[in-house]
């Protein structure tokens, strides 16, 4: 065996000419400048988009309304109802008129914001965190852990989540509150977050800088938390924002079907459901809560879309 004879290299080494990079250009890079990354790039893009600011303003407004409805209306949504005002026309103090029960429509919309937003945020707190956790575990460990988690996700994904929520809500009809509704929606929406998280972790895991980290002898878990997750999280945040919008719609749909929040709880879905019988004589009672619902969902959808377009260079090129 002559395996230890090294073949002699005959070719000359080619060295790229260094003179092509002007030294002046290197001097111009200021080390004190903040290094640009995915998020600073996205921010630089986002802050020039009016639609982004409009959606942020609406989201903040609705959050304030949900936390402190008393700031916006002095009229009680359910204590000052007079049946004599049933389906009454708007007046100076009751700008949107009255419901069938003679309650102030504007006040009911203001007080109904809390239910919608809290269900939305609870759903993403549950399904977003579960999905991100299971997805990153599946992507990080791979192998049978990945197979088991993803097949499990397939099962939950195969049932349209509103249908699943209808079944869960019929089962727990006696114990309905905001948490149960959020759980019913979140229990079947986590796989979409998990899928995105997993594919992002897989993508980042195979990139060169992670391999460099491994080669330098960095611990697997440290690598995961310091390098893989921060680079994989952006699309997950976008999906989470969009599923927040979907959760608000889902809550309203469930309440509309009568299997969401109980009738006593103030929510836009319940109000729209109550107003449907008087659609012809008094469409305003149905239309105003619908507008509030639509603007809320639209704000989150636009926020998510803007975020997605700014974070994804491919989408930025499509504009």
């Amino acid at each position, binding site marked *: 065996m002559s395996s230890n004879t090294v073949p002699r290299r005959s070719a000359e080494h080619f060295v790229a000419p260094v003179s092509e990079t002007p030294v002046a250009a290197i001097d111009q890079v200021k080390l004190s400048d903040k290094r640009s990354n995915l998020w600073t790039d996205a921010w630089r893009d986002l802050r020039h988009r009016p639609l982004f600011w409009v959606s942020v303003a609406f989201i903040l407004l609705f959050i304030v309304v949900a936390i402190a409805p008393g700031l916006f209306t002095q009229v009680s949504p359910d204590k000052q109802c007079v049946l004599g005002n049933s389906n009454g026309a708007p007046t100076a103090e009751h700008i949107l008129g009255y419901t069938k029960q003679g309650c102030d429509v504007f006040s009911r919309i203001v007080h109904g914001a809390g239910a919608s937003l809290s269900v939305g945020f609870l759903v993403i707190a549950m399904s977003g965190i579960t999905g991100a956790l299971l997805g990153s575990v599946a992507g990080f460990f791979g192998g049978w852990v990945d197979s088991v988690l993803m097949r499990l996700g397939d*099962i939950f994904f*195969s049932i*349209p989540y509103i*249908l699943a929520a209808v079944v869960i809500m019929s*089962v727990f009809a006696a114990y309905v509150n905001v948490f149960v509704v959020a759980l019913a929606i979140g229990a079947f929406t986590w796989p979409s977050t998990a899928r995105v998280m997993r594919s992002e972790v897989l993508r980042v895991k195979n990139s060169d800088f992670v391999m460099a980290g491994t080669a330098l002898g960095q611990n697997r878990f440290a690598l995961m938390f310091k390098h893989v997750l921060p680079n994989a999280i952006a699309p997950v945040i976008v999906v989470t924002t969009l599923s927040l919008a979907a959760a608000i719609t889902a809550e309203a749909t469930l309440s509309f*079907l009568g299997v969401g929040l109980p009738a006593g709880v103030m929510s836009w879905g319940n109000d729209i459901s109550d107003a449907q019988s008087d*659609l012809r004589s008094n469409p305003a009672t149905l239309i105003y809560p*619908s507008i509030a619902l*639509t603007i809320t969902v639209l704000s989150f959808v636009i926020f998510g879309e803007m975020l997605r377009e700014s974070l994804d260079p491919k989408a930025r090129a*499509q504009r």
Partner: protein
Amino acid sequence: MVFYVIRRILQAIPVLIGTTFLIYFLVFAMPGDPVAALFGDKQPNPELLKELREQYHLNEPFIVQYLYYLRDVVTGNFGTSFSGQSVNAVLADTIPVTARLALMAVVLEMIVGVAIGLVAGLRKGKLFDLSSLVVSLLFLSVPIFVICFLGQFLLGFKLGLFPTTVGADASLPRLLLPAIVLAASLVAVNIRLTRGSVIETLGNDFVRTAFSKGLSRGRVIRVHVLRNSLIPVTTQLGADFGILLVGATVTEGIFNVPGVGQTLYQAIIRGERPTVVSFVTVMVLFYLVVNIVIDLVYAVLDPRIRYVK
């Protein structure tokens, strides 16, 4: 191809078992005694209770009960609805109506969505593109039942273009308004998808080649751009189907269309839990089958799919 078909069907089996198990588990976890509930406030004979329990295998352990249920599902026996009719008989009456409605909605959605998406993609950044973005985001955000009421109120009641409810006679012209409403809830995703796909296809080398061969703009767009852009749109149909099922439930309920969705809607409104569960099971099975079929059709259309391991 045969290998791909077999593998796709085998993959569906654990999902089928999982979904039915999940639904059954939820029903099993329902509080209250289902047999006692049958009698309402009356005190039934204990002998009769025992007999009923044995008839429905309620004394067996959970897993045995589940296997009985799975046997019923596989053999196509979905039990009886609240009114005493067998679910199969109800399905036989209602499926043709829902199928007609769904097909009309999908055709409308495809035509409108692809047309708007194509024009928006070709005129990227122009006024048409921006307004189609705003409109599609709006339709993406309005819940289906609000679209239903608006359609019913404006098109049906104010303008009198369509009958406001459908009723027993579910002929094509009477189904048009519910179909438009259902299509409106789906069209936004289709517009966005077609637009993105058209823009991506336009950047391909084969499009540049087609132009440089001297083909007319119309021919390049029709033959080269549109056909290649439609692939992701076709795949989306499978996911759309889930939205369609929920949408049909709400739309048929509001417009009083005598379909599967309305039966489920009525059962939900009246709190008839066993009927709700039977119909949801049927819908989920239907959804699984449709998605398998779409995957197979897709594999026929695009050979790359069936060769990927």
